[in-house]
């Protein structure tokens, strides 16, 4: 019996190891794909969605920070590059980060690095034409999420920040 089952058992172990690794590798892409879909359903792809401050209850993205205001741009570069404009806001901290389909951070910059000024970047696939004079971020995949974070020191005084952040945008070129 042992002789008959030894090789099948070894085969099963090999399949288990491959399934383990494949699941781990696939999980971020699947989860990011779902996040892009859901954010796209809420505000549309290649458009900036300025979400209200997070409170209790279900949200598209788990573990949100209640101290930050989030504006997200779920993007799809299959039809062309994407221009992102982050407008300065009167907050001690804000940043723009871009996450690719594997959930890796392809780009991040904060207000200290921009010295309080606006930020303009273009996301593009290799080979796509990017306008001159604008910083380009090349991505290996079409889909991902750009996220604008703004520190809200006092949730009761969020209104001016909320107005200011609406000057930030993303759009296909």
């Amino acid at each position, binding site marked *: 019996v042992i002789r*008959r*089952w030894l*090789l*099948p*058992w070894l*085969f*099963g*172990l*090999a*399949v*288990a*190891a*491959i*399934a*383990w*690794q*494949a*699941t*781990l*590798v696939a*999980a*971020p892409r699947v*989860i*990011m794909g779902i*996040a892009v879909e859901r954010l796209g359903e809420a505000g549309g792809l290649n458009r900036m969605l300025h979400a209200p401050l*997070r*409170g*209790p*209850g*279900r*949200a598209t*993205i*788990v*573990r*949100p*920070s*209640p*101290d930050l205001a989030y504006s997200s741009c779920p993007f799809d570069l299959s039809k062309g590059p994407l221009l992102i404009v982050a407008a300065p806001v009167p907050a*001690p*901290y804000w*940043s723009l*980060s871009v*996450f690719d389909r*594997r*959930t*890796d*951070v392809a780009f*991040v910059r*904060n207000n*200290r690095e921009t010295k309080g000024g606006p930020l303009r970047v273009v996301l593009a696939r290799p080979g796509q034409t990017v306008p001159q004079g604008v910083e380009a971020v090349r991505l290996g995949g079409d889909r991902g*999420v750009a*996220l604008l*974070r703004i*520190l809200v*020191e*006092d*949730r009761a005084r969020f209104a001016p920040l909320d107005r200011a952040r609406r000057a930030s945008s993303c759009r296909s070129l």
Partner: protein
Amino acid sequence: VTDSVAPAKAGAPAKTGTEATPSGAPASAGATILRYLLCGLAGLVLGTGAAVWSVRAGAFGSSAKIGPWTTGGDIGTDRASAFTRATVALHGLLALPAREARYYSAEADDDGRPLDGRCRYRLSGGDSGGAWFSLTLYDPAGYLVANPAGIYSAGSAAMSPAERGAWTVLAGPDPKPGRWLPTGGLERFNLTLRVYLPADGGRANLPRERLPRIARLGCP
């Protein structure tokens, strides 16, 4: 199992084993394929299930354990392992890389007991070595906990410079004087400490003495 005993011809001594007769060969091959299929299927279920279970059970950024806190310094980078990448995607998608913020999460107190929202805790700490910090309380699914006061976190943005050097927050189901972090009476909760713009660029984990203490004061 059909191949355990091959059919015996009349008058001939019975032979055991799959190779006994030519007519047994197809059955033998079929049984061998069946064994591989069964083991392969079991391996597929086991490997996939174990990966899903471990990622679901894994803490956000769980590559280093420091007292009750867990953290990972390679979040969002191509250096992240497949496991780190999967746990971050599930428990904290779109997390910032280390140079922008460091994340530390805790599901137990200083004595290793699971955090219980029916109990009272004293959370205390000092300078976290970043531009500012924030301590947020979540339910086990990673969502903010509903409470009438609308308090979900305690952070240095609301503290004076002196308090940032030595602060105390009481966590529990009922309002407390001073800084209070409501637990909502949940059976289980967890904490996430965010340290933004860490002074060292996020290269090193904070040592235990610079991470908040989580002391259980009592339970009903």
